[in-house]
């Protein structure tokens, strides 16, 4: 469990109590363990399992448990479903992680400027944010990929550019609330620069809700990338859970296992991260427990 402690303490600012609260929350710890396992499987699994997800290994349309079939059966080309489930998380998790980082960065920069300075800067930035909120997210990221072409970089860009408004609104609300507090006024009184107050005084205290939102953003980014892969909008040479669902969905009437297992992988991954986010929320804000 040492990795748990490290992950929390890096972002925690003086909250040993919060860490203890988090570790006491069984569901959250289970979520963290499961997610760590998924990450490990995604990184080392394909090498250990040794069978390529792109290679025909047995007869097509073999269900799990039938003779000569791999554990989870084969798809319409005779490829091993288990190999796809093991290797299919790599592209999605990578894109989702970078896109979520990008989302939080844009969100925090826009939100902190708007919340801290207020006035016309706030009005302008919030109008700008609203533009991105009224465009349906999936459609917008589809358009970005359509115009820029697929590939890891553009997929990340497409998702990151779509998801940031939520983080911006949250960061703005936190900055609006915190800038009126005594210690911020004190920092201003002793002549700290705006930049220092924003990022050294306010930001650390705004981190808890932003961190919770970051975990949710990762889940949403995973769903987005899976959705884009499902639609066939991402790089066709990369196997991912979403693309497995998209390519095999024509055979759902007879071969449920081709879609069931990749989809369950997405759900379990998302759920484990959601549980961590929920645990963080409770730990940071015990009053809201069970809400």
């Amino acid at each position, binding site marked *: 469990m040492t990795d748990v402690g490290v992950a929390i303490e890096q972002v925690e600012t003086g909250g040993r109590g919060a860490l203890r609260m988090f570790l006491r929350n069984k569901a959250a710890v289970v979520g963290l363990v499961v997610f760590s396992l998924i990450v490990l499987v995604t990184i080392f699994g394909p090498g250990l399992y040794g069978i390529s997800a792109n290679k025909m290994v047995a007869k097509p349309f073999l269900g799990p448990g039938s003779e000569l079939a791999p554990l989870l059966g084969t798809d319409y080309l005779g490829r091993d479903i288990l190999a796809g489930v093991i290797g299919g998380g790599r592209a999605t998790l990578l894109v989702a992680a970078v896109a979520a980082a990008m989302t939080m960065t844009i969100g925090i920069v826009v939100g902190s400027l708007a919340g801290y300075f207020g006035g016309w800067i706030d009005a302008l930035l919030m109008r700008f944010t609203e533009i991105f909120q009224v*465009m349906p*997210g999936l459609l917008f990221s589809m*358009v970005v990929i359509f115009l820029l072409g697929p590939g890891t970089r553009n997929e990340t860009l497409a998702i990151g550019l779509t998801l940031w408004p939520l983080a911006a609104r949250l960061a703005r609300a936190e900055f609006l609330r915190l800038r009126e507090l005594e210690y911020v006024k004190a920092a201003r009184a002793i002549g700290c620069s705006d930049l220092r107050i924003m990022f050294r005084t306010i930001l650390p205290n705004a981190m808890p809700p932003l961190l919770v939102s970051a975990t949710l953003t990762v*889940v949403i980014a995973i769903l987005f990338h899976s959705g884009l892969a499902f*639609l066939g909008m991402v790089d066709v040479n990369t196997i991912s859970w979403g693309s497995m669902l998209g390519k095999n969905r024509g055979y*759902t009437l007879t071969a449920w296992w081709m879609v069931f297992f990749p*989809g369950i992988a997405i*759900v379990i991954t998302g759920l484990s991260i959601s549980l961590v986010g929920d645990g963080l929320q409770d730990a940071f804000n015990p009053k809201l427990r069970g809400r």
Partner: protein
Amino acid sequence: MTALARGIGSRLGQAIGLLLAVVVVVFFLIQLAPGDAALYLAGDQGVGDAEFLARVRADYGLDQPLLVQLGTYIGNVAQLNLGESTYFNEPVLGLIIERLFATVLLAGTSLIFAVGLGVAIGVYTARRPESPMSSAATVASLVGFSTPVFYSAIMFIVVFAAKWRLLPVGGIEDVRYDGNWVGETIDLLQHLVLPALSLGIIYLAIYSRLARASMLEVLESDYIRTARAKGARERVVVYKHALRNAIIPVITAAGLQVGNLLSGALLVEVVFAWPGIGRLAVDSIFRRDSPTLLGIMIFSSAMVIVANLLTDLVYRIIDPRIRVGGSR
């Protein structure tokens, strides 16, 4: 009433400004893409010499300065001209309107299902915070939040259409009922059940949790204690006094989620071959029909803006405190 009217007026102005901004963003997105319409047409017709390109660019106004092009584009959109599909050779707006009913039917049914049942579950579980139903609702909301809508849709097909053969696998109508409107309506509803359920169940998970949280908070407030203290019946306290305030965050969320709802509808339309604008958008991408794709982008943004306006209106009716000030 004048304050209400003024509030709505200023919102309307903002909405138009917002739509204009979306059009500008879409215009600049087009500029980001490599190549232009002239190159596309050249590829289409197999002639690519410089003279042809120059002629096409002049014909389409692509040799004009960018700002002039932007002005023309905005002018066209303002006259409800979203351009012409390069695949159908028809006005994009007409293509969208033909498919609008299917999308609105799907998204609307899902939303009503999710909000209605979500509030009911929320109220039920908020009154019994320790019941197993309550923890089940919390778990279900987390699972719902993490489940891709296209996955729930596919699994619904596997169970209800493939295994049990209860409901149609996809499409919106069956030809055998042609001409008989009772049969046609029943047929449409049968085709609607699975798509609406797959989309609605995700939002049901979200709204039931939200309704529960908001109901729990309201039930703890002073005015509810007062109502109970003066001896109001529990039923009246919960359904009349508490529900009215508790439902506001749910309506806010539902209004803000319309964009996401349309994104979800797009995926569901693809799974069920539902003839809506989302599927048209996906098809347009594979046909490289950018006028249609971008037209749908602008049109659906307008739908979201209208939905936000309506939410705002509903608020102002439910909650008198919002009428003045009106900022979020």
